[in-house]
């Protein structure tokens, strides 16, 4: 039995430790904002562990300890000192430490102009809009790309109910409140792909309201932004061209924008460069043609409650043509 449990501890510990890294973890910070929170977290864990050890030791003495030690644990001095004075002082100290750590977003932008990104929470997806520093507006959905090293100012809004913007590797949670804009200043210091999640219950598909944050090198980011600001590319294959005309004739443009075509709807995500994103179906599946087609015909099973009507009006070849066209929009 004893060896058995010891054998089990190895993989268990590996599992626990693995939970600390990864694309959605407070304990694996990728920027100064998150680093402060990680410090606070570790400090709290450590301090809490010390207090717990002390309490357990006192309990053990009270039950089994020698008479003399028990008298110490039961003394008035111990009760007032460890039971009243210590919690009051340590909790006040912790509060001060926490407030100091989170006193502001990054205290200053080091004299650099922050990159402005507007993120709007909608049931149940993220509308992403880059400040029009480029010729045409850059819009995305459920995916945010940022350059490493440069401060980024997120302006957070909500189109319907309260959401909360949380990318644990970059910063703490910040609510998105209908009717007002909140602001979050962060900086990512290493490149990577991180995952964010709505952290305030917002309705049926809340649990599936995720987003991807891609931190790129400044040069990669600049060329990505340059590409994003261009209108959608012309389809080169006959199948993609057929897909584009079906997309337009089927009324997809009523909700979606594809810049460079008559499709200019603003209800759903901008699809101008859909093919370059990591995920499809409002961050519920990997980006590929199959998942695009599946989301159109069976979206309610991929992401129950999402607001896009189900398009079961297409023949298989038509569906494939539209998926090919959309996946090709890079």
């Amino acid at each position, binding site marked *: 039995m004893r060896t058995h449990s010891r054998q089990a501890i190895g993989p268990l510990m590996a599992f626990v430790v693995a939970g600390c890294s990864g694309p959605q973890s407070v304990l694996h910070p990728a920027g100064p904002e998150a680093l402060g929170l990680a410090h606070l977290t570790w400090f709290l864990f450590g301090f809490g562990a010390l207090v717990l050890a002390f309490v357990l030791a006192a309990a053990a003495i009270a039950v089994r300890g020698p008479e003399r030690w028990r008298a110490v644990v039961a003394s008035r001095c111990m009760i007032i000192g460890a039971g009243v004075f210590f919690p009051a002082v340590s909790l006040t100290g912790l509060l001060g430490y926490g407030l100091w750590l989170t006193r502001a977003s990054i205290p200053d932008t080091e004299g650099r102009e922050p990159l402005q990104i507007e993120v709007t929470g909608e049931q149940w997806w993220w509308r992403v809009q880059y400040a029009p520093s480029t010729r045409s507006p850059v819009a995305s959905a459920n995916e945010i790309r940022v350059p490493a090293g440069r401060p980024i100012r997120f302006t957070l809004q909500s189109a319907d109910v309260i959401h909360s913007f949380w990318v644990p590797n970059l910063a703490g949670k910040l609510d998105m409140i209908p009717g007002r804009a909140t602001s979050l200043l962060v900086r990512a210091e290493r490149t990577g792909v991180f995952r964010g999640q709505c952290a305030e219950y917002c309705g049926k598909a809340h649990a599936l309201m995720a987003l991807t944050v891609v931190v790129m090198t400044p040069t990669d980011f600049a060329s990505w932004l340059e590409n994003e600001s261009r209108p959608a590319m012309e389809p080169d294959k006959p199948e993609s061209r057929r897909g584009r005309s079906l997309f337009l004739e089927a*009324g997809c443009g009523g909700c979606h924008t594809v810049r460079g075509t008559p499709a200019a709807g603003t209800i759903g995500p901008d699809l101008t460069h859909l093919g370059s994103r990591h995920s499809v179906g409002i961050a519920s599946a990997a980006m590929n043609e199959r998942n695009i087609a599946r989301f159109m015909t069976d979206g309610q099973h991929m992401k129950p409650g999402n*607001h896009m009507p189900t398009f*079961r009006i297409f023949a298989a070849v038509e569906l494939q043509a539209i998926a090919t066209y959309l996946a090709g929009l890079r």
Partner: protein
Amino acid sequence: MTVAGAVFLFAWSGIYNVAASSGHWAVVDWFLAFGMRNSVALRARAIAVPPLDDIERVRLGAGHFHSGCAFCHGTPDTGVGPIARQMLPSPPELSKSVRTWSDAQLFWIVQNGIKYTGMPGWAALERTDEIWAVVAFLKKLPTLDGESYRALALGRVRLAEQSGERMATNDSNLQAAGACARCHGAGSSGPTSALVPVLHGQSRAYMVAALRAYAQGTRRSGIMQPLAADLDKESIERLATYYAGLSPTEPAHGSPSGADAHGRILATKGDPKRDIPACDTCHGRDRLPRYPRLAGQSAAFLAGQLRLWAAGHHTSTPGAALMAPIARRMSEADIDAVAAYFSGLSRLPAGGAP
């Protein structure tokens, strides 16, 4: 126990005569009718009655009565036919018996049918709008003579007099002849009722899909389903081709008015704040022929369809899966405004018509 055994023995022995021809004893007749009337009265108590003197409802109800009810209940011209009269109980001649029921009771009977009598329930129970149309017509029935009945039920269809040979050899029964045209019109005349859609110049692909959906029961209608279920694939295509090829008549119902300014905005721009896309992105020019044309349809019909979706009815066809979520986002005022807007538009083909 003894009674149950006796009843079982009675049924087992076969002594009881189930012949419809032998009829019931008068006392049994009375008892059954007594039970039926009380049962209907109890169940119809809570039914709220909409206004029934609407001529559009009466006309739609008349069109259905002729194909769905007249075979058993007869018409003012024919009375109850000799075959139906041999049923037990024989179907009442409604022009006389309708007055003995209240509106709510008639509704309940048409919707649910009556056990052990041969009176069937409605093929699409949730389509109360259709059932009320039948009730509206039934209320009118006692006042009709043969001529006024034909004017209502046959619409503007004039059946050409057929030669003896054609009558002798034609397989289709006369009842079915002109079944579509009785309500939807044909040639240069349009629908008889504002509750009936205009098919003239409608997209062929859309009509084929709609008739198939009616036939399969995925699009729910107690009026259309029985008719569409009789049609095979080729007939559906021939009918759709015929109506698609007719030139659209100008609107007979509704006219542009101030009420449609809001409708115009919804139709052309939608309301993105409330996730309502513009109607024109699917129903406008150069769109897929499988989407129906809305221009020039009557406001009553369009609003009725939107309300069915908004209420969660007939949502299982691919087209309804698209429209139902959008209709649910629309307010009553949106529905009326957008219906008024499209009813005022010219019926000229939208360009993409095949």
